[in-house]
């Protein structure tokens, strides 16, 4: 019995190795992608030009692909693989082999796509919108990344299924349940991007077909693109719901509420892609309206999460004798990097979420669409809330997996890192938001647009972004120092993998939450409802297809 418990407290070293393999790729992407981000903000300040004829848009593509697709997907798969191993038991040899196959496919695909981007054969930005046309190897590499991630995710599902089989009638461990929800959402969402790449972009870039239907490809992209952002966010929520309570010494406010909110994300993250296409002609406004309503449904689980987290903190604070309306804030462990780093991420999600509601509202989208406001928005959501939480996770998970300790010095450096990040992002993302409201465009290199008055007004904000970008780059250097230290140099020891317990243990999560036929059925029904009619309409009334363009 003791052995069983011990085995579950520590991630098996064989599983740890696969998780760490993911993290090495993720942090390499962070290093290169971060440098590109710095270069972009410097170019946009108007004070700096790229050497050797390197193009701004190539740098932008490297930054977007490495940060948005590689860093996130590899970190998430590595983290979820470890979380399932820790809570549902060590992966079987078959599951682990599956995981390794997925990892290598993703890595090979990443190298293929990255090579084409670096050869300047695929400067199509991370959204790779048609009719911008990349080299076919870029698209084939992306296909490998997606298929690899399915196989990688299958390893988690196999171990979850094994746990369910061995524990009939029991709700699965919360972190495993959450990991599987996110994996399933990812698989359903990536069907869209797989469809556009396999049936449209690959044949078109190979020259098998001359033209591409741009609106169909963009619609399939955004069918994937919105759940993609929730695929980034849900692992952060896993940490906030199920790990942070243990770190602060409190309890999960409600296990069932956490599960319900994850199910709502599965249902409402996908049939909402049109809110990224509100300004696009060719989509019936009625269906845009319906998808905007579905988008606003996501506000419900987001606010459930906010409530649940505040409640966890307040309950813990009051158990420590805190009084008054906000006295509980004072007793939180402000000197623990494992808490404060994700906590800054949580706080950043307040303006990030508010901005998201603005973006998704049809009228307000007319104010901010394609402006750098949107870039500012996802640098708060993905590049602050999500990645600060990922950094916070890695500060205990990396030493846990490598058999080392998070030392006091590294804990302190982690806290400094998070504040450096917060300050840098306040400058950069804040300036992006304001410049966007003044009409400054996103996805564009420095230009004074013929010295137009409006464009000249943007320049101070662009300089503020360069200041913020420079501070953020210092933050990235600090993260890399900590990561390398924890992976190779920190003293040997035992670092805890914290897993929270629910406050009310007698409250068993309803088994209906594990009824995958039901949830996948509703997910499919919502997707078919939201997409079938407008998609038929898009295809039937399609304009002539477009040939490929290379603007770089």
């Amino acid at each position, binding site marked *: 019995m003791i052995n069983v418990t011990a085995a579950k407290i520590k991630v098996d070293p064989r599983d740890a190795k696969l998780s760490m393999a993911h993290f090495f790729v993720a942090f390499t992407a962070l290093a290169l992608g971060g440098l590109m981000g710095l270069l972009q903000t410097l170019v946009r300040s108007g004070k700096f030009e790229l050497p050797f004829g390197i193009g701004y848009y190539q740098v932008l593509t490297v930054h977007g692909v490495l940060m948005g697709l590689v860093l996130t997907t590899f970190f998430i798969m590595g983290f979820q693989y470890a979380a399932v191993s820790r809570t549902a038991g060590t992966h079987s040899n078959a599951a682990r082999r599956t995981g390794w196959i997925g990892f290598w496919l993703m890595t090979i695909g990443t190298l293929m796509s990255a090579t084409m981007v670096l050869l300047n054969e695929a400067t199509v930005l991370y959204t790779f919108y048609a009719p911008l046309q990349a080299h076919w190897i870029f698209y084939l590499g992306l296909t490998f990344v997606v298929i690899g991630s399915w196989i990688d995710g299958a390893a988690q599902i196999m171990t979850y299924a094994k746990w369910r089989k061995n524990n009939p009638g029991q709700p699965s461990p919360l972190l495993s349940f959450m990991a599987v929800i996110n994996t399933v959402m990812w698989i359903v969402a990536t069907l869209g991007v797989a469809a556009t790449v396999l049936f449209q972009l690959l044949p078109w870039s190979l020259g098998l077909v001359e033209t591409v239907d741009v609106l169909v490809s963009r619609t399939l992209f955004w069918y994937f693109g919105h759940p993609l952002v929730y695929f980034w966010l849900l692992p952060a929520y896993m940490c906030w719901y199920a790990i942070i309570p243990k770190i602060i010494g409190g309890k999960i406010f409600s296990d069932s509420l956490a599960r319900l909110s994850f199910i709502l994300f599965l249902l409402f993250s996908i049939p909402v892609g049109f809110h990224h296409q509100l300004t696009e002609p060719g989509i019936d406004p009625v269906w845009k309206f319906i998808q905007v309503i579905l988008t606003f449904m996501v506000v419900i689980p987001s606010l459930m999460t906010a409530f649940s987290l505040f409640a966890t903190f307040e*309950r813990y604070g009051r158990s420590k004798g805190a009084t008054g309306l*906000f006295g*509980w804030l004072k007793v939180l462990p402000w000197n623990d990097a494992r808490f404060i780093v994700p906590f800054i991420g949580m706080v950043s999600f307040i303006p990030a979420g508010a901005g998201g509601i603005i973006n998704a509202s049809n009228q307000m989208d007319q104010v901010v669409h394609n402006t750098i406001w949107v870039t500012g928005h996802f640098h708060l959501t993905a590049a602050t809330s999500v990645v600060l939480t990922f950094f916070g996770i890695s500060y205990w998970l990396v030493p846990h997996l490598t058999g080392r300790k998070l030392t006091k010095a590294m804990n302190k450096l982690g806290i400094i890192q998070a504040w450096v990040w917060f300050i840098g992002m306040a400058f950069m993302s804040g300036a992006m938001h304001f410049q966007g409201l003044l009409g400054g465009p996103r996805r564009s290199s420095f230009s004074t647009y013929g010295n137009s008055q409006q464009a000249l007004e943007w320049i101070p904000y662009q300089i503020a972004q360069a200041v913020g970008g420079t501070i953020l780059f210092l933050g990235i250097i600090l993260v890399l120092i900590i990561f390398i230290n924890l992976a190779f140099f920190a003293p040997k020891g035992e670092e805890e993998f914290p897993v929270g317990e629910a406050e009310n243990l007698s409250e068993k999560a309803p088994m209906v939450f594990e009824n995958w036929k039901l949830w996948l059925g509703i997910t499919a029904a919502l997707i078919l409802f939201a997409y079938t009619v407008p998609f038929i309409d898009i295809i039937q009334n399609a304009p002539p297809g477009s040939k490929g363009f290379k603007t770089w």
Partner: protein
Amino acid sequence: MAKPELKTNQKTQVEDRSSLKGTLASVFLLGLFIIVSWVSVYYLFVDRF
């Protein structure tokens, strides 16, 4: 006599440990922030279009 009794009463009022009034206030502040942001940009829209 009445005054000391009142004081004693106040002292024995212990705050309920299960109180979530801070949480309630926090989510209200959060909601208010969302509404203020939304309305501000809405006015920008009305002003411009």
